[in-house]
């Protein structure tokens, strides 16, 4: 356990050191960014609609009892942008992007492709891992934006169309509790989640052993570990955010 953690940290540092190395693998980066987006955009959008809807439904009835319908928009934005957005991004990035990266690198590892690459004088961390980590970070940030838009849109639909809220109140209350730093911290979370998910997936893939079953195990472990890490990180970043940035309406 401790050795594995140490190895993972060393691996992450190697990746960090590989970042400024030239030539930067533009092709691999673009390919990976495209690939990760293609496996994650649709599920992210589909997950965030019900997420926004659930928040709208939960809040809708509660808020009506308190007579504060005009704040449903604010609450929905707050919930989606601050928490649901990053969480959905984390789930999709780890579940769809991370598992794909881990499976790909794991298969290369057991087919000795990575060894072959090293023997040909090419560092797989520089050639394969660095572009994947950067691509995942980029896609995570973009995905978070998408989740926010779709989530807020879903909330709007359920609140206004299904629960009979007023569009004006929904939109006007956006600024009542929310503020720009909410969005910024959401994007920072997404950036960190993308980096961690890609690093864990790459590490697990590159250390897979024991044939095809080993790759399956590695993918499974990588997804579970990433989930745990991302939820813990989410809590830590949120806690720091509340300490550092003054909140509206308090």
């Amino acid at each position, binding site marked *: 356990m401790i050795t594995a953690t140490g190895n993972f940290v060393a691996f992450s540092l190697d990746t960090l050191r590989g970042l400024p190395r030239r030539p930067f693998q533009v092709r691999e980066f673009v390919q990976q960014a495209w690939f990760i987006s293609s496996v994650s955009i649709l599920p992210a959008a589909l997950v965030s609609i019900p997420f926004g809807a659930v928040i709208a439904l939960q809040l809708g009835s509660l808020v009506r009892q308190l007579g504060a319908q005009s704040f449903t928009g604010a609450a929905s934005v707050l919930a989606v942008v601050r928490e649901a957005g990053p969480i959905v991004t984390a789930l999709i990035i780890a579940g769809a992007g991370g598992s794909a990266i881990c499976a790909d690198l794991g298969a290369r590892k057991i087919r*000795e492709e990575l*060894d072959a690459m090293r*023997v*040909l004088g090419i560092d797989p961390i520089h050639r394969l891992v660095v572009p994947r980590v950067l691509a995942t970070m980029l896609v995570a940030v973009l995905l978070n934006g998408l989740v926010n838009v779709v989530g807020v849109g879903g909330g709007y639909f359920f609140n206004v169309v299904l629960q009979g809220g007023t569009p004006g109140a929904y939109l006007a209350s956006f600024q009542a509790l929310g503020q720009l730093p909410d969005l910024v911290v959401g994007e920072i979370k997404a950036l960190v989640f993308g980096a961690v998910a890609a690093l864990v997936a790459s590490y697990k893939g590159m250390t897979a052993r024991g044939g095809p079953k080993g790759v399956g195990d590695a993918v499974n472990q990588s997804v579970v570990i990433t989930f745990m890490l991302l939820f813990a990180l989410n809590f830590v970043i949120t806690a720091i955010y509340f300490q550092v940035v003054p909140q509206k309406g308090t």
Partner: protein
Amino acid sequence: MGVEVRVEGLTKSFGRQPVWSDVSLTLPTGEISVLLGPSGTGKSVFLKTLVGLLRPDRGSIWIAGHDLTRLSERKLYEVRRLFGVLFQDGALFGSMSIYDNVAFPLREHTRRSESWIREVVREKLEMVGLVGAEEKLPGEISGGMRKRAGLARALVLDPEIVLFDEPDSGLDPVRTAYLNQLIIDLNQQTEATFLIVTHDTNTARTVPDNIGLIYHGHLAMFGPREMLLSSTEPVVRQFLNAQRVGPIGMAEEKDADELRAEAASGVELPPLPPIPFQLRPSNGMPRAAEHPPGAWCIANRVEPPAGSFQSAVFR
């Protein structure tokens, strides 16, 4: 021109499980050596240690004035360019066509034009007889073709040392014969130092200049082909002639009781089979590192087994 590889006191273990210890040998410049051993004796581990993919516990590997075991990661990547390695299944990049696979090292390491790369790739594919399969993916061709494609990729940077990890595993005898001939021809053309890891005794008897045998965690013997083929050392004799009588058992080495019982039962070992001629390059010209047949036996006053070096045993 090839490079000499000198291994001194190399020891490797995984955790508490030792693989082999104190292996010392020298792969002579430009010669073909074969490393033999029963399955599971760490032959592939030795090969991976030799290119620095695995770090040994002790010992040194001297190549062109560098001790591979003490090099930094970055320096190691430079020295590795001296090597070409043929992995067991070719280890081709599954997402690339055969052409892209062979061109990959050139594209990564040189800034040459695409037309120059095409020229070199064609030349190497011609060497291994794969012209016409350039656009196929590794998943679409047979195991033998994958091996040859892997060989073309290993040769594309003109390595000084070429390592083969079980080139004959999973191939039928005819394809193995072709591949062995290819190895001899490549050695003649490139004059690089070759090391073949295998457990095929037929390959070991006819292809190399030198044979080494790993057994029970150590190097039992390493030397010229004729030395091992005329040796009566029990392990060497048993392995090279694929016999049941001897120290190697089904699962592990036999214990003392079993060996005593075997000796008491009075099983008579058949006489050593004759030493066959070494495989010659197909164009009839000698290799630079070739030794005349029987030279070692004469120089060391060893009587080769009856019938050795007679054309009838040419395969």
